[in-house]
């Protein structure tokens, strides 16, 4: 069940009504949300429900025992075993084929005969990376005694499976979400204007901008880079930067908005990422729930920046490399992570540099604007690797940037979508805040009508026959 569909709309309205109907019966309310989350997941693929339940059970059991057990050695072993088990689930479903292919290829290159006749075939469960990261957060937060409440089976299951975040995040921390599940959310304090605003803007980003950019510009160029001019290739690169932002941030906006309407707060996931003036700032603004997860559960356990400069840089590189691999089992993702790791290292060396000319340059008035431009293009270079189906295709696309710039043209609508998708981030937050105030001041019925108008306009202007009205898979 994708968010921008009629199905989700109906599903959410039902869950909303039932959840607030049970406002005074907290336990029943949580059971209802858990059941709804499992229905939501089953609508993607019911065969993986046991996986969802099994990993939740692992996380809940380990976290609860960690809360009770006091012997440090036992706690360490338990945490190690739990995290290893969770990571093996991720490895099995997401990386086994890729790893076996790589090993088989290396063996073949080393001259041995055909290593394997066949590789294991494993279907990729929807959202498995998010599920496993939630389970790990649950166990590690319990180990670090960051969870101020008793871990229960029901809360753990709901935390891992809660449908707004289930398939595409934002990644919640057990430390901040489990306490929210302890006390019933107040039916008198729903942040509805913000929730509805997030849902409406998220829909617009996803249905209007991301879809238009994908079908009209990005997909055709990335599928056949050799057949497009340099100008089209460049626009497609910018277009993909706009598309992936609109797509992903739109999706998590809908998630955050849905959760707010149900009375739960999710962390912010995007904060105008293309306004970042350096790679480090970019990761403060892009997929924040992931970058802070990687920071707290990978970079810091690796030693963080405690082991001297060389060690810090190495930790940064490893974190980003694994972060890249988390996005997908393929060399393009590894390289994308490596690129961002290098970017972070370069920025760190640059910002620590005591060289006079560099310091003077950094103080120059135009530097900030230049830095934003440079960072954006660095990020775009990364997106080429991220989007391209193979390294070869990425190379081809980059090569076509240097090729002929004759021929080909892009419609005004597509160009406008690129500009809005990237430039829309420069719209000050105060504008959205004013909009929210104006919305909240209107009579309730007018608020409902305004919401309907926004959704109907998005639907009418959205692509016909593609999402949100897809009737089958392909």
């Amino acid at each position, binding site marked *: 069940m994708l968010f921008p569909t*009629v199905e989700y709309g109906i599903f959410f309205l039902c869950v909303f009504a039932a959840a*607030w109907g049970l406002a005074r019966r907290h336990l029943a309310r949580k059971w209802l949300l858990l059941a709804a989350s499992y229905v939501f997941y089953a609508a993607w693929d019911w065969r993986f429900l046991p996986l969802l339940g099994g990993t939740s059970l692992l996380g809940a059991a380990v976290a609860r025992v960690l809360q009770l057990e006091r012997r440090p050695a036992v706690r360490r072993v338990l945490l190690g075993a739990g995290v290893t088990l969770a990571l093996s689930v991720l490895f099995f479903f997401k990386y086994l084929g890729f790893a*076996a292919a*790589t090993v*088989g*290829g290396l*063996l*073949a*290159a080393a001259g041995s005969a055909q290593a394997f006749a*066949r*590789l294991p*075939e494993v*279907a*990729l469960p929807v959202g498995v990376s998010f599920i496993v990261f939630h389970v790990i957060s649950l166990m590690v937060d319990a180990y670090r*005694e960051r969870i*101020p409440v008793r871990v229960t089976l029901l809360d753990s299951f709901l935390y891992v499976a809660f449908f707004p975040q289930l398939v595409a995040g934002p990644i919640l921390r057990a430390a901040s979400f489990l306490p929210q599940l302890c006390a019933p959310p107040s*039916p*008198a304090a*729903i942040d*509805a*204007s913000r929730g509805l605003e997030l849902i409406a803007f998220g829909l617009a980003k996803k249905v209007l901008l991301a879809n*238009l950019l994908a079908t009209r510009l990005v997909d*055709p160029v990335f599928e*056949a880079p*050799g*057949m497009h001019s340099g100008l*089209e290739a460049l626009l*497609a690169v910018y277009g993909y930067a706009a598309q992936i932002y609109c797509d992903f941030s739109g999706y998590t906006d809908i998630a955050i908005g849905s959760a707010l*309407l149900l009375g739960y*707060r999710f*962390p*912010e996931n995007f904060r105008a990422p293309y306004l970042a003036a350096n790679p480090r700032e970019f990761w403060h603004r892009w997929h924040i729930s992931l970058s802070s997860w*990687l*920071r*707290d559960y990978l970079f810091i356990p690796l030693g*963080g*920046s405690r082991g001297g400069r060389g060690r810090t840089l190495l930790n940064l590189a490893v974190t980003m490399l694994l972060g890249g691999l988390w996005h997908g089992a*393929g060399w393009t993702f590894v390289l994308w992570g490596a690129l961002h790791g290098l970017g*972070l290292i370069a920025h760190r060396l640059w910002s620590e540099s005591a060289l006079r000319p560099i310091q003077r340059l950094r103080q120059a008035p135009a530097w900030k604007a230049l830095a934003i431009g440079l960072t954006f293009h660095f990020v775009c270079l990364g997106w080429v690797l991220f989007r391209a189906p*193979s390294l*070869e*295709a990425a190379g081809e696309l980059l090569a076509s940037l240097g090729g002929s710039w004759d021929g*080909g043209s*892009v*419609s005004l609508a597509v160009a406008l979508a690129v500009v809005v998708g990237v430039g829309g981030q420069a719209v000050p937050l105060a504008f959205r*805040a004013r909009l929210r105030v104006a919305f909240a001041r209107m009579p*309730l*019925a007018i608020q*409902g*009508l305004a919401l*309907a108008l926004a*959704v109907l*306009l998005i639907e*009418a202007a959205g692509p*016909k*026959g*593609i999402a949100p*009205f897809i*009737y089958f898979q*392909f």
Partner: protein
Amino acid sequence: MAELAATSSRGLEAERSVIAEALSRYALGSSTAEAQLEQSHPASPRLYRAGEVVVILAVFAAAAVAFGSEGLLTWAQRLEAGPLQRGLLAALRPVHRALDAVGGTAPRRAASSVLERFAQKLGAGEDPLFAGGWSQGGEDPTEPSGSEAPKVPAPESSAPEPAARVEEGALASGPAGSGERVTLLLLGDSMLAGSLGSAISRGLGHDRRLRVVQAVQSATGLSRPDVFDWMKVVPPLLERERPRLIVCSLGANDTQRLPHGDQLLEFGEPAWRALYQERVMTMMRALSGSDARVLWLGQPPMRDPGFSRRARGLNRVFMSAAAQVPRAEYLQLDMLVSGPDGDFASFIPDSRGRFVRVRMDDGVHYSPAGARLVARWVVDWVYERLPTVRKGS
């Protein structure tokens, strides 16, 4: 109620301070998850009571049904055919008719047409290949009368976008000016739309004797003409492009029930098979026309065993249909992109023993390398047939 955890031991306290210190020095910033939460939710102008939100959402839902009944009807129509879909349609049709009678559907239609005109001005109209080709079933009340349908300019007069699917220099010349070149039409669903179409185009890329045209639409097939009717798209398409060679890949979306009159035919039952084969043959005949050559691509094995079995059933239909239609040929793909036993494989070894990914993560679509494998056979077929059609043209 919340039960606070036991007080932490001293060792943990120490570890926590290390973590806090590391956090503060960490290259990626120092805000904790909690601080992030606070930051991301600045004070809202007002908080609502649940009852108030219910009012907003109820008005929203009522307005969405009242003014968006057309969109809802279209949505229901595109659901998989079955009892649920029938029920929804039965419920939505009278609502829509009643609203239509009182003018409830007018605002959306007006908005749609304004938006469409606006989009067209910006060059975001429908794909030129589908000029007038978008069709709903005859009984669909959602389709406005013909005069309201957007008129899309012919390919040569519109500003072609990169998404324009006419490739290999044809953008400038248009169909009329294609000279002596033979047009190859690639027609199908997303099995063809992604890597495969471009792999075929590239395989033939620099051959000046050929002009490649792609007509692809994801999520379509032959089982749901009520959703997308290829038989209405094909004749004007052939008229305009005049292809002599056609490669068609349809069927991946057809492993579902067939609505037939008042009946629903279950996939695979004899009546289903008869009706589906009839449609495939009609399509093959339409494509081959008076003298075009048609290559119908079979379905590869799929990761899901049930899907794979159904795909084999489809392949049997394609094979038997192609045998009965002159100038139509069927390409069996089972052994081209599969494991050693002809079953599904994501990776297969190349000639040097290195494993190459041939299928996407979804276990259905081709990866670029898999597409190149299939494209090689298609390209061979094109070169084999090229002399015969050139003689005929």
